């Protein structure tokens, strides 16, 4: 992995290193439709940045612009200091990209896939073997190097795909829903790899639908209808949550949901795991009222910190009206 650039101490304190990724009023229109609308943000080097939003919100369009695949309609962006509109060739050498569709050759073996991508990235011969061994070790594929890729489980394929995407040691990696459909053990192992890369100074730009994964990011951006509607660390975003959350555990949450959502003071009631989350003005005031309203139920009520799902729901509700 690339070494972080040595910075003279004085210079480091005077000027922060330039961001790995910058977006300034970045916009992409398709005909009448604005897929990405004036999005501005920075991603620092070595940061794990989570880009969240519902399907069709503009996540993939943004990533495609940043990877230099799709030119912006207006606005600016840079990746590793290169302009996304004019320097897409240079950008391609600086980034790794992996999407939910792994783009591995199913008929090739693990090693053959790695060799194939080494060729694409023009890894010099002397380095090829070292990088291959690095990928095999990182992905834990030592005893599967000769296996046909089609026979690997989703988790192995995913780690192999990540390995192939970073063979050329890019300082910035774009991951577009990399863990869709893999089991929780593999998902957790995948995140261990992400931490390892970030620890080595690699910048990670990741989209996901799993909000528990979003919790693992240093900073998050929420995009909705093409617009960036929230930006901050998970803790900052939660601190700014309007209202309080009461967790309600009960036997028949759906029945209870219908009864509590119309109570005064309950802004919103949502099924959450095996129970409900209620968004309220003040938890302290509403808890006794809830107990009173549900005399026939054995309920446990507790004020909790909002989860990212609570935030996500509240952002989307606020926007959809």
């Amino acid at each position, binding site marked *: 992995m690339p070494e972080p650039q040595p910075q003279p101490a004085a210079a480091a304190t005077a000027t922060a290193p330039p961001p790995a990724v910058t977006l300034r009023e970045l916009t992409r229109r398709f005909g009448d439709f604005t897929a990405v609308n004036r999005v501005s943000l920075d991603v620092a080097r070595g940061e794990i940045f989570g880009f969240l939003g*519902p399907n069709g919100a503009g996540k993939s369009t943004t990533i495609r612009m940043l990877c230099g695949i799709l030119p912006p309609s207006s606005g600016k962006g840079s990746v590793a200091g290169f302009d996304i509109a004019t320097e897409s060739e240079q950008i391609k050498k600086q980034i790794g990209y992996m999407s939910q569709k792994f783009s591995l050759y199913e008929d090739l073996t693990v090693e053959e896939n790695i060799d194939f991508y080494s060729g694409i990235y023009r890894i010099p011969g002397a380095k090829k073997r070292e990088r291959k061994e690095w990928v095999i070790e990182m992905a834990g594929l030592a005893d599967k190097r000769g296996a046909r890729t089609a026979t690997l489980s989703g988790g192995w394929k995913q780690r192999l795909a990540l390995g192939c995407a970073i063979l050329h040691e890019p300082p910035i990696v774009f991951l577009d829903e990399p863990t869709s459909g893999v*089991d*929780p*053990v593999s998902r*957790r*192992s995948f995140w261990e790899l992400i931490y390892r890369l970030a620890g080595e100074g690699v910048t990670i730009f990741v989209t996901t639908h799993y909000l528990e994964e979003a919790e*693992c990011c240093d900073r998050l951006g929420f995009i909705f209808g093409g617009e960036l509607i929230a930006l901050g660390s998970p803790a900052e975003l939660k601190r700014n949550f309007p209202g309080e959350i009461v967790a309600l555990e009960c036997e028949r949450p759906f029945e209870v949901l219908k009864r509590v959502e119309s109570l005064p003071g309950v802004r919103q009631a949502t099924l959450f795991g095996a129970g409900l989350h209620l968004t309220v003005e003040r938890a302290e005031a509403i808890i006794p009222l809830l107990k009173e309203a549900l005399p026939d139920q054995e309920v446990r009520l507790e004020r909790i910190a909002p989860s990212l799902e609570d935030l996500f729901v509240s952002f*989307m509700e606020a926007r959809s009206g």
Partner: protein
Amino acid sequence: MPETPAIRTEKLHKRFGELSAVEELNLEIPAGELFGLVGSDGAGKSTTLRMLTGIMDPTAGEVRVLGGDMRRADEALRSKIGYMSQRFGLYPDLTVQENLRFYADIQMIPRRGRDARIDELLEFGKLTPFRDRPAGKLSGGMKQKLGLACALVHRPRVLFLDEPTNGVDPVSRRDFWRILYGLLAEGVTVFVATAYLDEAERCGRVGLMHRGRLLACDTPRNLKRMVKGGVLELATPDPRHAVRVLSGAFPGGSVVLFGEKLHLFAADPGAAESKARSVLEAEGLEVAVRPVPPTLEDLLVSLLREQP
């Protein structure tokens, strides 16, 4: 006499050449239950659903839905079953309403009453404002709801759903589950395959499937009692730094961020606690530790680790 189960399988097997996709599957699901089949890609969920819906014949074993043998299912039995596959066949060029009409015709719904049923389903899925929009121009969440509406057009008594919310945002997922609960209230039996463990928590009973075998099957509450080991919640001032350090010391997915806290899953929580403390103290991080109840994900992680 006990009521006929809505779904029953006995020693169900499916082999594809060398591969056992489903092995020795025994299920009994009473009418009106919401049953969740949980597993990752390749666990055998879709194959199971195809056998349950009579689309694929088992290699061995028996499948009964509402008492009828699915290998010889007649139209009367098929008309009581709804199935929404992972890539449900919506016609992108047809409007929402036209898709529903098309599925109503396939199911031979009499024209009289057809449009009333369609109106009802549009209302049910909050799709009424979009009835004239081509299905290809719907968002992912709305497509899923339309797929569900199409699968429900003939009022099935048993509904099979194959990862209906995969890749759908949390708000649409939430809406989708409200619809499922509404169906349960009407007495429909719902069998849903999912990879989301938080959705599994909402089911009456859950089967955990891995490599074609059912590892466990019970209510979420009872399943969580099966966890061998314990979960520790760690509160530290810098959880994101702590998770990076700890995942090196406890590999294999033992450490996860859970909001601003960390969850550490360990077979021996006592030993894990002292190790975690020393690892974090070496980094200059203070830590407060308390045991917390395990989640279904913790159970799945613990069961998968016991697998060869």
